[in-house]
């Protein structure tokens, strides 16, 4: 296992905080009725998004899920564009057409959240193929949940990527639940990482609350992919602190799991490590938090101030080229 340098670790700390505070703020705004739709946040799971993104270049690609804000924030997406989109504003990154579950920010390689689970698993090999044909040296990461791993596209996408040795990293965020269904009630054999062996590719299970462990596993997978040695599968075990969606009464689980999650808070954990090693002190941590909060408040202010789209804007953006309206 290799170790990230201290600067990178501090950056990852800041990035996790950015994801956490962004989503906590989004939850609050949702509860206050500022954000429409369903809202799935990844509070507690930040180490996965950040550990992955820290191992990637800006021009590397990410295919995300219904729970994708963290992936986008970690990848360096515009907080303004994202928050305005969550608000459904005209200058949201998708002009208000996508919203929480269908956001893309192509400028940072973020090819889209997705309302259909596991769909990214079959899109990824095509992105990999394009990378390979263009010899661009990029990689593509596709995220999916423990529940989504049981859909057919997982099988087809992993097989094709392995067969054609494509630069794809499959990252399963195992947060123990698919909505109200426990991982143990959905996944025969219990391990998603173990399924990699059947395709002759590396499959690794990591502590998804340890950003360094995630970063390390993804670094190795990314290096392998860039070398031309093909895909890897990483299963990151983590815990979501909040409901499946905002407003979920969570009748399916006890408080103890969330308590466990909080005890194993990935942000506090990294803060401890950095502090112990003298890489971060209270003043520095406070400065980071301050600047993150400022960024987020800027995004919120921007979103609040932005105009809603006009109804008839619904007719734009469908085609790049269309001869007439029929």
């Amino acid at each position, binding site marked *: 296992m290799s170790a990230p340098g201290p600067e990178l670790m501090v950056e990852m700390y800041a990035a996790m905080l950015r994801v956490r505070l962004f989503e906590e703020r989004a939850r609050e705004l949702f509860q206050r009725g500022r954000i*429409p*739709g369903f809202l799935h946040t990844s509070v507690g799971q930040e180490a996965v998004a950040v550990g992955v993104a820290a191992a990637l270049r800006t021009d590397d690609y990410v295919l995300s899920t219904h729970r994708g804000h963290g992936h986008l924030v970690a990848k360096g997406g515009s907080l303004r564009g994202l928050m305005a989109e969550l608000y*459904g504003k005209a200058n949201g990154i*998708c002009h*208000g057409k996508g919203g929480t579950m269908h956001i893309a920010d192509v400028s940072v390689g973020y090819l889209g959240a997705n*309302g259909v689970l596991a769909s990214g698993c079959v899109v990824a090999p095509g992105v990999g193929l394009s990378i390979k044909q263009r010899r661009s040296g990029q990689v593509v990461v596709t995220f999916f949940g423990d529940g989504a791993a*049981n*859909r057919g596209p997982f099988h087809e996408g992993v097989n094709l990527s392995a067969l054609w040795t494509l630069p794809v990293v499959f990252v399963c965020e195992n947060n123990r639940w698919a909505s109200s269904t426990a991982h143990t009630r959905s996944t025969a054999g219990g391990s998603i990482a173990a399924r990699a062996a059947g395709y002759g590719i590396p499959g690794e299970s990591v502590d998804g609350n340890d950003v360094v462990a995630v970063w390390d596993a993804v670094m190795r997978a990314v290096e392998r992919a860039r070398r031309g040695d093909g895909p890897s599968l990483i299963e990151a075990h983590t815990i979501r602190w909040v409901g499946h969606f905002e407003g979920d009464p969570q009748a399916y689980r006890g408080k103890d799991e969330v308590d466990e999650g909080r005890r194993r808070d990935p942000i506090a954990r990294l803060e401890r490590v950095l502090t112990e090693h003298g890489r971060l002190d209270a003043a520095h941590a406070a400065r980071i938090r301050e600047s993150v909060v400022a960024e987020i408040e800027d995004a919120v202010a921007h979103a609040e101030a932005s105009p809603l789209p006009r109804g008839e804007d619904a007719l734009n953006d469908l085609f790049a080229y269309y001869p007439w309206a029929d």
Partner: protein
Amino acid sequence: MKLDFGDALNLALREEMRRDPRVYCIGEDIVLGLPFGVTKGLIDEFGPDRVLNAPISEAAIVGSAFGAAVTGLVPVVDMHFADFVTCAMDEVANQIAKSRYMFGGQLDCPLTLRMPYGIGKSGGGHHSNSVEAWFVNLPGLKVAIPSTPADARGLLKTAIRDPDPVLVFEHRALYRVVGDVPEAEVLVPLGAADVKRPGRDVTVIATARMVHESLEAARRLAEEGVEVEVVDPRSLVPLDRETLAASVRRTHRVVVAEEGVMRGSAGAWLAWVVMEDSFDELDAPIARVAAPNVPIPFSPPLESFVMPAADDVIAAVRHVLK
């Protein structure tokens, strides 16, 4: 009694599960009744053998229901959102719809597919679509589309008892709509349209949520002296062409109102049916109310722009009266 649409469906499930031990429910998160509460509490009465939470495997959920249906069980599948039928499309289109026919009638397939669908609450492009037109175009399936709690209960019961596969389209925005439901176990047959409001001036043929928007339009138009007849086909396959034609014979003017997009939709099919059966009765071209030809956008002003409503029905009625 008064029940909302979701509770009426829940009641239908309970009644049919009590009546026939072969009936079981399967879907994602249905034990807790997610996402719309329709299966809530069934687990307490019927236990985990008959209320099955499945993994996220739509092809296996729908495919296995087919396997069970042809070997002695009576599955009721919850599609979660109708949009996800795309993840089980071979199972519906090639296995469920075609097997009885291809096998020369050797197998019955008493399977019900519950399809929660429709625009609303900024669900966005992957959770809001009207896909019923695809299945109207697929011989071997029956397609129900109730608009009221009583019809929802009566049609779902009929669907479950039907020896053939039936898709029941349940509009998400109707689940909490309350209406009268008979105390008795009344079945609503497939292929029996219902005149939801009589009127002499214009026939509005509407499905699901658009029935309510059309009734609202009719109320408003009545204030101007325009009497709109609202006809709800209740099932698209089989289709009660006679009730539609009879209404046209009275009014001679027709609006077809649906939530799907204009192009190639179920409403386009209904408009054709009216043309075929009643061309000579028509005093004006048929008008259609439907969504524009785009996916369903997220932002509320965009979403309401594409979502057909009472105002659109009123405009269409005025148009055919011109």
